[in-house]
């Protein structure tokens, strides 16, 4: 499973639409296989780029509706309005705790209320 995180230095970038950098992580059930940081172009080219890189999941900060829809159309699972240090966010994703308080931006909890696709579930699904 490949996960991309919209990052700005060590933290999840506040707004993905303005993010310059992506951290791409090749994840396996017991940890991570590889981690690559890459500078990317902004906005509209990202969904096609991530699709070509065979990214399954995108974790990002705030994201505009049109851009989020473009990722969903490209078949990429989006965990948006996430904040925190990249390593901590990644650990929370692995433990299925990404939807919990410290990682969700203020005022954005309702967006995550009905989401149930944590790391474990996604991995199980990919194994099935």
């Amino acid at each position, binding site marked *: 499973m490949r996960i991309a995180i919209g990052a*700005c*230095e060590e*933290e999840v*970038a*506040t*707004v993905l*639409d*303005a993010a310059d950098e992506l951290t791409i992580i090749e994840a396996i059930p017991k940890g991570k296989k590889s981690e690559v940081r890459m500078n990317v172009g902004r906005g509209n080219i990202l969904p096609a780029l991530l699709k070509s890189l065979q990214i399954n999941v995108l974790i990002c*900060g*705030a*994201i*505009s*509706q049109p851009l*989020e829809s473009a990722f969903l159309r490209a078949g990429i699972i989006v965990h*948006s*309005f996430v*904040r925190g240090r990249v390593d901590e966010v990644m650990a929370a994703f692995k433990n299925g705790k990404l939807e919990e308080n410290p990682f969700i*931006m*203020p*005022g*954005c909890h309702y*967006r995550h209320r009905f989401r149930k696709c944590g790391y474990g579930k996604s991995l199980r699904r990919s194994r099935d």
Partner: protein
Amino acid sequence: MSQNRFIDDSKTRDIILDSIADGVFTVDMNWNITSFNRAAERITGVLRDEAIGQRCKDVLKADVCGKNCILKKTMQTGKSIINKTVYIVNATGLRLPVSISTSLLRDKKGRVVGAVETFRDLSIEDKLRKKITQRYSFEDIISKNHKMHQLFDILPDVAISNSTVLLEGESGTGKELFAKAIHNLSGRKNKPFVAVNCAALPDTLLESELFGYRAGAFTDAKKDKVGRFQLAVKGTLFLDEIGDISSSMQIRLLRVLQEKTFEPLGATESVKNEARIIAATNQNLLALVKKGIFREDLYYRINVVKLELPPLRERLEDVPLLVARFIEQFNAATQRNIRGVSGDAMSVLASYSYPGNIRELENIIERAFILCKSNIIGLNHLPDFLNSLSKDNSRGSTPSSLKDAEAKFLLQALNSNNWNRLETARQLGIHKTTLYRKMRTLGIKSPLSSTTATC
């Protein structure tokens, strides 16, 4: 007693803040929000209780948060920032333009204890501006000139026709923009748009650029090279400055247009041309045909649909629209917040003849961005030749005598009729010999040579 007073103070502060229509929040030295008013709740979609104590970037979610933080700049420099336009993403994912102002917060002893940020939702202004712009724009082309609107009207039909198009217009009139608009409106819009400036390359290089070559075609041809015709397969090939190509290249192009095939250098088999051709020139191709410089058969092959783009001096009413667009673009590119052009600067810009057309206007605005330190471009930010024009204009606006006024009037009439004296006389309702006599007595001479001047 002091505790009660503190509670009263904070309540009063909240009431005052809530009565303000703009969003307002304050932060401490760690960027944590300490107060957050109702308008801020409405714009960001985040409740006050959720916002207090949180880092401001997680609540505001602006595109400048992080590396280009405006509050950070204010904290570092001690200087307020006024009306900087940025975009935020609210809690529902809507991207909103907001105008941000920042200032330092100090305690009674004058020590910095944090900062305050106010922000105004500009989405309504933005929508209105876009609506006005849309009325005058077509794809990326902007104009309210009637000749341009006639072109806008036929452009969709031209686009879907797949015919070869010839764009004629002076340098800087936006021929490539028109070519892109035709491509974007056609069924080929998802295929490549490839532009080649024919005048920029020597003949032999142009040939290999356009048609490509096979490995071994010449000494340094180690690998096959795909030409622009092949790159533009099923898309559009834009051949700019086609009037400048050599006669041998004209023959090769004619063959492609006639037979719809071409051979890369060194190839033994023909390749089918599936690109639509849009050609452009800043010369009068028909005049070149008459002089024997441009092949007549090629001219008629590319002149299936001809669009003539008017120079900017014939659509000076577009100058304010174009200036506004360039300011918007340069503001975004340079992170500036220039709001516009002063009245006297605009009247100078709107009365200049622009031999370099829109490109020249763009360069004038770019230069003004470098020199302008305030948020309004003034006369002193324009090039010297425009300033001297402004002085001439101000002298000319109060002519010293009736003779001067008559000369100025006649010059304007002659210019607007492209120095066609018969047309000018007809327009002014005078006999042509009267016009000649007046020109002679007022010392007006045609800038055109005697052979090209039209009677």
